[in-house]
């Protein structure tokens, strides 16, 4: 018996290779350079890798345009428009978050390149998840992403909360991973394969008389994903982790984990288990309602900006799930569009939170924002716009993101569901607005001006620019997302 090496289409995995390669190069450099590596070098390499991964997307896109979507490495990895766009979003989030983290390092006096290495590795894991066509590859990507994040969350060694959050995340995340892999095993038992295309083919051509095994497997997979995207009722970890993690890491997590996990979820539910739609759609229906409404309601009572944003991010997860629930090409495109517009906004929002947090990363009560827009009109206006975008105000991308998923849901026969989700958005409006009121309130006596370092300013500027430019002119980005979801199924 001989082992055959499957053929590898290197262009398909180029972004993963670039990101992982960047991590390896940086790792080697830290060993070779005498003393600690300068943060600027580490940041430079990370930005280069992010830019490279982003640029690789153009070549991939051209390839798909010419030859159509394809699989490689024994059909375990897909190259299609969906993965290209999702990977590009991850690359952008990585770049922006690195800019924010760079200034954070200077402020906190932290040296070394561990953060950068881990960030690149986790981004590689997330990109792999968007391309995975096999439950095992999804698991591989998921673990690469998660394990790196556990360390990143614990990165701020001076704060107990950081380690506590990491432990919590690690224990619960470990559980979720175990559930996921158990689900994968059950699905394998029921269908004889872990490959998504094969599973889909098997379910399409066979009648399963006793679907218990398949259902159990699917349910466990769904729980695993629901945990990763923090869908209610699997969300309890997220406020604590968002609060405890160093703020730049929180921003990075909020963007990248969502993109990776949702991309994989869409593949599993729609490509592999599309034939079982009637079974999983009611479950997702309940998840959407719980996630949008509970997320928004619990956010109202928060006094800590990071916890509030954690619940807000839960609320957003509900909307992205709404696109998945639609179970259509339009729905997947909408979810992708939502992710693409949400990621830069959330990274930029946490960039502002990082700045306001101040030395020690401690000032995170909503009261710390009192009068910010009066002292620093630009910073305040930027945060105001980012919050309005998350609220879904027209002329920002947030509006079209919500429009897209709601349209998909209504098109898929989910009028009442869309209405419930929108009422969740109305509840969410409450705390976004309360925050903007504080922003524009009278400035308290003796409040100091917050320094805005250049790199962070760029990250915030990009987030605001994306939300305003595509908010006024959403056509190109929407067309891209729609074009990108010719899902690969064979």
């Amino acid at each position: 018996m001989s082992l055959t090496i499957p053929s590898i289409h290197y262009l398909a995995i180029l972004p993963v290779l670039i990101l992982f390669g960047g991590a390896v190069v940086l790792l080697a450099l830290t060993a070779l350079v005498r003393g600690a590596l300068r943060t600027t070098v580490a940041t430079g390499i990370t930005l280069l890798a992010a830019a490279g991964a982003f640029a690789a997307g153009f070549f991939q896109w051209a390839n798909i345009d010419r030859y159509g979507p394809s699989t490689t490495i024994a059909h375990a990895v897909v190259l299609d428009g969906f993965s290209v766009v999702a990977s590009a979003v991850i690359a952008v989030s990585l770049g922006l978050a690195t800019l924010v983290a760079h200034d954070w390092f200077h402020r906190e006096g932290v040296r070394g390149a561990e953060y950068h290495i881990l960030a690149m590795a986790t981004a590689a894991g997330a990109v792999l998840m968007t391309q995975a066509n096999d439950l095992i590859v999804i698991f591989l990507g998921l673990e690469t992403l998660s394990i790196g994040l556990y360390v990143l969350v614990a990165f701020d060694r001076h704060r107990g909360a950081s380690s506590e959050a990491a432990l919590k995340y690690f224990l619960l995340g470990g559980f979720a991973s175990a559930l996921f892999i158990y689900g994968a095993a059950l699905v394998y038992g029921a269908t004889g394969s872990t490959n998504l295309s094969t599973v889909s083919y098997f379910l399409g051509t066979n009648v399963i008389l006793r679907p218990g095994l398949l259902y159990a497997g699917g349910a466990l997979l769904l729980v695993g994903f629901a945990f990763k995207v923090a869908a209610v009722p699997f969300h309890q970890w997220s406020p604590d982790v968002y609060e405890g993690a160093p703020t730049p890491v929180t921003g990075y997590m909020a963007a990248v984990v969502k993109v990776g996990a949702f991309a994989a979820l869409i593949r599993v539910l729609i490509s592999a288990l599309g034939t079982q739609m009637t079974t999983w759609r009611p479950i997702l229906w309940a998840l959407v309602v719980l996630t949008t409404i509970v997320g928004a309601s619990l956010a109202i009572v928060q006094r800590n900006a990071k916890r509030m944003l954690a619940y807000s991010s839960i609320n957003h997860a509900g909307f992205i799930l709404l696109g998945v629930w639609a179970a259509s090409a339009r729905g997947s495109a909408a979810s992708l569009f939502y992710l693409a517009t949400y990621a830069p906004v959330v990274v930029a929002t946490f960039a502002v939170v990082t700045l306001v947090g101040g030395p020690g990363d401690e000032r995170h009560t909503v009261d710390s924002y009192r009068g910010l827009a009066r002292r620093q009109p630009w910073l305040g206006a930027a945060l105001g716009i980012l919050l309005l975008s998350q609220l879904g105000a027209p002329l920002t991308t947030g509006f079209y993101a919500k429009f897209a998923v709601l349209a998909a849901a209504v098109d898929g026969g989910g009028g009442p569901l869309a209405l419930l989700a929108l009422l969740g958005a109305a509840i969410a409006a409450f705390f976004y607005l309360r925050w903007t009121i504080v922003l524009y309130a009278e400035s308290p006596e003796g409040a100091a001006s917050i320094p805005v370092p250049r790199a962070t300013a760029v990250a915030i500027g990009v987030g605001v620019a994306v939300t305003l430019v595509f908010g006024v002119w959403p056509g190109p980005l929407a067309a891209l997302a729609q074009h990108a979801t010719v899902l690969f199924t064979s």
Partner: protein
Amino acid sequence: MHSSLWLTVLVWLPLLGAAAALLARRRPGAPFAVAVATASVELAVSLVVAVLYNDHLAGAHTFDFVGRWVLAAPFGLAYDVGIDGISLLLVVLTALVVLLALLGAREKRSEAAFVSWLLMLTTFTMGSFVARDLLEFFIFFELTLVPSYFLVAHWGGAQRSRAALKFFVYTFAGSAFLFTGLLYLGFLHQHQVGGPLTFADAALASTSMSHATAVWLFVAFAIAFGVKSPIWPLHTWSPLVYAEAPTAGSMELSALLAKLGSYGLLRFAVGLLPLALSTVRPYMLTLAVIGIIYGSALAATTPDLKRLVAYSSLAQMGFVTLGIMTGSTIATTGAVLLMFNHGVITAGLFLLIGYIERRRGSATIADLRGMQGPAPVLAGLFTVVMMASIGLPGLSGFISEFLVLVGAFSTHVWWAVAATIGVVLAAVYLLWAYQRVFHGQARDIDQVPDVTHRERWVIAPIVAIVVVLGIFPKPVLDRVTPTAHQFVESVTPAGVTK
């Protein structure tokens, strides 16, 4: 046919003015000057549009100044403008009220921001009134929330934060229904005729649907518009918000934003879903009548002048709803005219209350006594505007209320009878409030100066409109009636007498 460029100028000019005002914020007085100049040009352009408007264009129903551009095909998003006799008056009203609000209710604190928000609000309101596309209307409709929220939250009274939040969340929640409904309607249309997603009025109006679907959609639309309008029982946000908003904010909210609700109800709920009318009409008429009587009753008992106008607006908007839902040409004409008249009159009332507040530091009726002696001109102005609101024959309020009631009497007698009680109640609460504010003896009587020259000039256009339209409404009616007639024809099934 006239160029749509006119309307494009009307919509976007205030936004440019807002940007210019922000740029000029370092020079004291400059933002205000820029804003007043912008609003004056805006009013001039709107008057030119009103004069040029031609309702006899072939194939465009009664629309003029039309133009349509698709902006983002996947969303069915388009920029589609045009006006007919229904929107024409509201366009003029929008331009008029913003100019008066700027001149009569100037806020010196962070003035650049204040005038910018006011001008932005004008852009969005104007955009809503000239939109001929449901999605475009919805976007402008939602956008009006942002400036009005900031206007209330920054320049409002003691409870401004609470009021601003309440206003935003109420309207936003109401909009959720409209949004879901419009998406549903858009897809229904797309599935029937194929082609790209579109929300153009003319296209959506041809959608065929079951009676039940029409009723559900109507309910969804009516909730959104009922919050904004407000229609009883969705009005609960309005007294607090009108009372806490700065004078300019109250003027914009009651004179313009409330009209967005009734305008939407007429144009989109009735216009796009005529099938639902046979079922929903009695309920809507009943809500309108309850609003009239309930609003009048509360207006009589409330201790605050601004809240009084808020409740009286609830009653007046009840008449508008009555006219819209009655569905005859004469009542629809009356409703459209009443929207305009009520806008002018409440803007005037809030302006005068602003004058009073500036003099006495309070709008609580019990604090104000005996203002007639030291301020006879103010009292006189108040009397004219108040009488118009009561509906005294010879002033503008009478014509529109009369048309609505005549239209309602011919088809829905009992509702009309009940609504007439509201006319009497209006006289009761306004006259009683007038007595308490202007008659009697005040303790600090010498300290109340009369209206200044500038204040007189600001209120003068309102008084002029109130008087002229009361005596000679023909030019305005001539512009509204063809559209109202054509509109009623299009929503009435064949064989039904109007």
